[in-house]
């Protein structure tokens, strides 16, 4: 059975690290929902991400900052299709949904102090600290080419159940 519940800030700290796939849902100019898989940063009970300042995501947020941010564990996201798939049970927390507004920080303003890259130690994060890609990422933020976007959540819900 599908259900939801509120999430404490401490619980969110745990979920931010265990739910390692992140999806951004925003509105385009015509009011359609748009979904983007995202990397992510987290700190002080808040998610953030970076994107090109001229990207469609920034254009959309400057018009309408409302956002839904979904985090899901990779064992759910990568669940193999077919009769053998059993990863998501009825009581499992398959996803956490944060609803609120996105804030695009001004050019040159970097990540808030204490906000760290999620999955930084994972080999899939090509831009992890110490890599050439990470240096380029930070330089791009400092120059204003990339923007830092923060998710200000008004509500956080755990979605349970296989369906």
């Amino acid at each position, binding site marked *: 059975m599908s259900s939801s519940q509120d999430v404490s800030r401490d619980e969110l700290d745990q979920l931010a690290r265990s739910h390692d796939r992140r999806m951004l*849902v925003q509105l385009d100019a015509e009011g359609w929902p748009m*979904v983007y898989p995202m990397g992510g940063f987290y700190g002080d009970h808040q998610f953030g991400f970076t994107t090109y300042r001229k990207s469609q995501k920034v254009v959309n947020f400057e018009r309408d900052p409302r956002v839904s941010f979904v985090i899901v564990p990779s064992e759910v996201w990568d669940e193999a299709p077919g009769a053998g798939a059993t990863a998501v049970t009825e009581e499992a927390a398959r996803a956490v949904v944060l609803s609120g507004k996105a804030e695009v920080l001004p050019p040159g303003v970097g990540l808030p102090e204490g906000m760290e890259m999620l999955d930084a130690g994972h080999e899939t994060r090509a831009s992890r600290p110490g890599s050439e890609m990470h240096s380029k990422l930070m330089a791009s933020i400092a120059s204003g080419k990339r923007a830092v976007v923060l998710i200000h959540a008004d509500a956080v819900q755990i*979605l349970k159940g296989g369906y």
Partner: protein
Amino acid sequence: MSRESIALTDDEVARFLSQRGVMALGTLGADGAPCGDIVRYTIHNGLVHFACMKGRQSARNIERDPRICCAVEQNPSYYEIKGVTIRGWARPVDDAGLCRTVLAALPPPPPQGADLAVYYLEPKRTISFDFSKIQNRIPTA
């Protein structure tokens, strides 16, 4: 590098979607705000079919406004990132036989007695990306 140059072909999109079973679903709330969810899907007759509990927020949103966006993505490593995003309309599947076929194909089939709404996605626009097609690579280590 333009997005088009790393897009999947139509055949690659079809193959990729058939290899996955979970997608992110974006719907519109009563006030027009975006709502995210995660749902299972299957491909039937070349179209994305999915199901969710009838009382769930996503189902309520679709009943009010069928405009949706779905995203499927894999990310085993940076240059293996691959994804498909489809924007379109969620159309209800009313045929009981087709509903049973779709539900039986979902990974895994839902529990008996679950009150599920079944939809198919009528696509409006498809966007895809395959980072393995990037030519000018930056070292990732």
